[in-house]
């Protein structure tokens, strides 16, 4: 007897680099939603800051002969790259963990089991995107922030690895909702904190198996690419290229 099972959704995030203004609202939202340890000055200077999603900022020189730090600010362009765990299909972090603390689940997520983790940090070494964060210290929140902690998310102790989960607690809530209403996932059932907070709508999240979803449509956009695709990791975050009007103009002048 075969058990009838609904096909599992496959979660994908789309980042439209053209819309990103680098405001870091997603970073703050993520910090609040996921009980990410506070990045104090000291921890930041130790280069041990936790940012499950971070905005990588790249300066681009408008003058092809000069490095970005040599040109005048008028010729300087900035590019923002919001970067979170890419939930790789063929994740390099997974095979190297000796205790199966990180594995792939049915919904295409690369999940981290905090309880199993022993902190070899091998997964972080083998991550192309540097999006795994190690708890070098026991995380401490000031008394005033005690009620701010999200009860749905584990507070990670020191000595273990953590990373973006695509707000797995919200996905689980969506799972229960869909089951209760006995229907398939539709857009808006699950919204990670970063997507919810993005003022310019640069981030989108959804089930790519659902052809009607926004992400499925955006995945076929002309501008789409995946980060470090040549490494063969199969990221589940799709980026849409920044359209540089000035670059097009410059080209026309040449």
């Amino acid at each position: 007897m075969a058990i009838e099972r609904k096909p599992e959704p496959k979660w994908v995030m789309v980042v439209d680099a053209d819309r990103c203004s680098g405001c870091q609202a997603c970073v703050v939202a993520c910090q609040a939603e996921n009980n990410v340890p506070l990045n104090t000055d000291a921890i930041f200077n130790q280069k041990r800051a936790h940012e499950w999603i971070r905005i990588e900022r790249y300066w681009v020189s408008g003058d092809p002969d000069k490095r970005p730090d040599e040109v005048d600010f008028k010729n300087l362009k900035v590019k923002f790259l919001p970067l979170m765990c890419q939930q790789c299909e063929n994740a390099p972090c997974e095979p190297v963990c000796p205790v199966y603390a990180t594995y792939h689940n049915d919904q295409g997520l690369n999940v981290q089991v905090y309880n199993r983790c022993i902190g070899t940090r091998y997964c972080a070494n083998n991550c192309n995107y540097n999006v795994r964060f190690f708890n070098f210290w026991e995380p401490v929140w000031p008394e005033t922030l005690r009620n701010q902690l999200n009860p749905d998310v584990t507070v990670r102790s020191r000595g273990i690895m953590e990373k973006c989960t695509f707000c797995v607690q919200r996905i689980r809530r969506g799972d229960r909702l869909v089951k209760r209403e006995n229907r398939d996932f539709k857009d808006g059932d699950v919204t990670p904190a970063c997507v919810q907070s993005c003022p310019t709508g640069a981030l989108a999240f959804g089930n790519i198996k659902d052809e009607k979803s926004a992400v499925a449509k955006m995945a076929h956009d002309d501008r789409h690419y995946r980060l470090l695709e040549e490494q063969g990791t199969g990221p589940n975050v799709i980026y849409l290229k920044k359209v540089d009007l000035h670059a097009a103009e410059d080209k026309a002048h040449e």
Partner: protein
Amino acid sequence: MQDRVVLGHTPQEVDARINRELLTNVLYTERRYWIIVGFLALVVALAGGAVGYMVNKGIGVSGLHRPVFWGFMITNFVFWVGISHAGVMLSAILRLSQAEWRRPATRAAEIVTVFALMTAILFPIIHSGRPWRTMYWAFPYDFARGIFPNVRSPLVWDPTAITTYLTSSIMFVLVALIPDFAVARDRTKGVAKAIYSVLAMGWRGTPRQWRLQIVAGFLLSALILPVFVSVHSIVSWDFGIAQSVEGWHSTVFAPYFVIGAVHSGVSAVVTVMIILRWLFHWENYITKDTIDSLGRLLIVVATAWFFFFFIEILYSIYTLEDAELGLRKMQFFEAPYSWLFLTFILTGYFIPVPLWLFKNVRRSFKWMFITTILVNIGMWIERFLIIVPGLARKQGLTFSWSTYHPSVIEILLVIGSFAFVSMNILLISKVIPLIPIYDIKEGEILKDEIKIGKVTVPAAKREE
């Protein structure tokens, strides 16, 4: 021309003298021995305190950060696994090939192996975020939750390979020790005698016992060789399979690491033997011939290592990948890595090897001591240069590029590991003779001289 030490004129005289001189430290103790051991114990205690502090406070007390998650401790781990390859290289291979000059060197080499491995295996454990939980991983089955370890991970292969190697090298040492335990048993009283009696396992020196002991020694030598090759290959795969780190994912790593391990290991054995010779007055046993032969062996090993080192660079540059080229450029030309690289290449190869070509250097204890220490400085830096630059400049996204500075705690742990190995070797020398007594005696019996023309050349008889 070899110069052979005459230990006595009758066989009984020779026997008695060997027993007396090689058992000196087991039966009596000099004052300077305790001073040295005491000092080393102090350093070990300090490092032990550092470990305790790190376990208590967290890995935060090290200089590690994102993305350089592995640093001094893993470098040190690879270094000590490398040193441990000396024992088998010298002992098993030379025993199988019946090289006569191996006799005084084998036990010291095996003991270095055992303690280097024990020290090495400590490092991945204390280096993990939750060392108290690492037992789930080092003892490979989590019974409580029925989770089998991830056999795809090199970190499961590592403990498996290292514990196999540790077990087999301890067996190897013990089998070779049985006749010497019997000698010690016959010369001690009270509790010591009782312990040696158990360890000697009823050794009476009958022909059958000798035959069995020799067969066991040969069998273990042959069986341990594949383990020896596999251990450092597996350690190299910690890096070799990491596809995301430029400079790590090289297919040539396994043979490169093995031969590098032999290079640093044999050098370490020479260093240890010269120290022991000075400490325990073994001038009659560790002779200029011994280090001369080891020096010649080292020239070959070092050059073979250099070949692999060269093709490793060649392979990486041959790809013409920007990432790989950028990494190599940083390693060779950008401070501080360029200074480390220069030190490494000079001390690891270009200073010692040309010096070893001179007979006067090979036959000088002082120079062999200096050059072998230099080799190990170089080989330590080599491991560092393999591990850290690739992580610091992980290619692709340049935003997270970083560098690495070890903390005081990490430096203490590295110094402590050296003290720990030295202290253990000295402590074990109180219990077992570090030069195999029976082996030396056998060598004395097999001594022969051949006349070639007008010259008399020392030689050895061989039983077929």
